[in-house]
């Protein structure tokens, strides 16, 4: 099976052609090794970093921005969002604070400080 993708590792946006045979991927069109890795991963187990916000319970109308510390499977983004939306946290919060231990396999960390 062949798939054509645009590499998103950097703004260069290389056009990749990925060939998958017997579960292993061969990538062409990449300008760097990261592109080959991306092409292979995107066709076998695509992942995304999810960024969102969480309501701060002990502040009025304050949101803390968050991200999954590592990428999660792309098909679990909706599930991750349900988990994130249900979350309530208390300030003070520092950048990097872990706000949830397991969101679809990743830690959820704060990306902005709340006094």
């Amino acid at each position, binding site marked *: 099976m062949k798939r054509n993708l645009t590499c998103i590792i950097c703004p260069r946006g290389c056009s990749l052609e990925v060939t998958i045979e017997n579960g292993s991927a061969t990538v062409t069109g990449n300008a760097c090794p990261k592109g080959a890795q991306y092409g292979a991963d995107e066709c076998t187990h695509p992942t995304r970093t999810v960024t969102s*916000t969480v*309501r701060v319970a002990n502040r009025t*109308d304050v*949101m803390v921005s968050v991200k999954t510390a590592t990428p999660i499977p792309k098909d679990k983004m909706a599930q991750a969002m349900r988990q994130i*939306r249900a979350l309530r946290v208390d300030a003070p919060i520092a950048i990097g604070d872990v706000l949830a231990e397991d969101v679809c396999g990743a830690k959820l960390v704060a990306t902005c400080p709340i006094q």
Partner: protein
Amino acid sequence: MVYDVGIIGAGVVGGMTARELTRYRLSVCLLERENDVACGASKANSGIVHGGFDPEPGSCKAQLNAPGVPLLFEAARQLHVPYRKNGSMVCAFSAQEEAVLDELFERGKQNGVPDLELLSGDEARALEPNLSPAVTRVLRAPSAGIVCPYALTIAAVGNAMDNGAALKTNFEVTAIEKADDCFTVTSSDGETVRCRYLVNCAGGYADRIAALAGDDFFRVIPRAGEYLLLDKAEGARVSHTIFQVPTSAGKGVLVSPTADGNLLVGPTATEVETPDAKQTTPDGLRAVMQLAPKSVPSVALRQVITSFTGVRASTAGGDFLLQASEKAPGLVHAAGIDSPGLSCCVSIARRLVELLQGAGLVCADNPDFNGERPDTHAFRKMDDDARDAWIQSHPDYGRIVCRCETVSEGEIRAAIRQNPPARDVDAVKRRTRSGMGRCQGGFCGPYVMQLISEETGIPLAEITKNGKDSRMVVGRL
């Protein structure tokens, strides 16, 4: 309670009428269907104070226009509303059009317009260098001017309220009954207001209000006019209001500075189905863009910051319809107030008071009346030292919320507190100019919503753009 006078419609005529009535010992209540005053034709028009040479001599418009101009400027001065006596020019481009100018000149003299003059094209260009070289002759009316129409309405209502008048917004009249010399006016929410006399200043809906009172004798013909508003960088393109002679091919459009320093071009004139038909159209905007450069070829139309449509409330006769109802004694109509309605708003208000007196209203002087309204733009007019001193005692004025128009938090809070109180984003915009600049509310919008919420207690999710269902957001995350 029973008010002495109820006024339906808080536009510029309703507002000025309320203000005139508070000069007397009278209780007055303004009824407005929208969430704020000045939401109809008073919001979206040219803002021109016409000299008065246009109306047919002897007409109601002719009687009220020229004498109304100094009254309007005096009111604007007392109410601290931005205005400028910049004068107007009507441009002719051919011998045929020059003949029209001669006619207008004669008419103007009959109507009592002061200081009218006919200028050659070159004489006019000496005063107004960006005028087209194709202009052959100009009728100049130095007495004409410009005023901010919604600021005038807001200030008139505010001043009336400061002098004791009441304002009920979101009061859409659905029934009018008269019994025992008293009108009972009912709103769509079932609220009632009782009053002995009633003034119909309902603009585009004046015919429906008349019909509710059993006095169904005229029709409002809504006519839409589309405009383009240009950046302040274009505000000095012309200093006069520049009209074109109406021709068989069309009415022509005006190019004018506004009282706030922008440049306005428009309007079109298209009959529409309802007074709410406030959409802009490709044809309308194209027509304005094509016609404006005829008189001022250098106008930079790419500097457009917004476009809008206003709907005139005309009537078939073409004249103002100011009269006491024959079928419902105590009711007075002010209908068909299209151009030059703004120019005549004070003289119309005074005519309406006379009509009410004729219908039996007793007007005893109110010794407490104060026609001056505090200047809501005092802060922006201060120099740096005065600002510094003011901020020391009013720190909210130190924080700028709208950067395009340099509007402070203090001014926005004041606009929400002062009469008539602002309750939505557009109401704050009309009072403070916050959101009226180049970014059109992109930066200040969220802050304005927060301030309205803080001041009024309305939850942020319920804040509207202009009342009713115009919510800014759909909910919390």
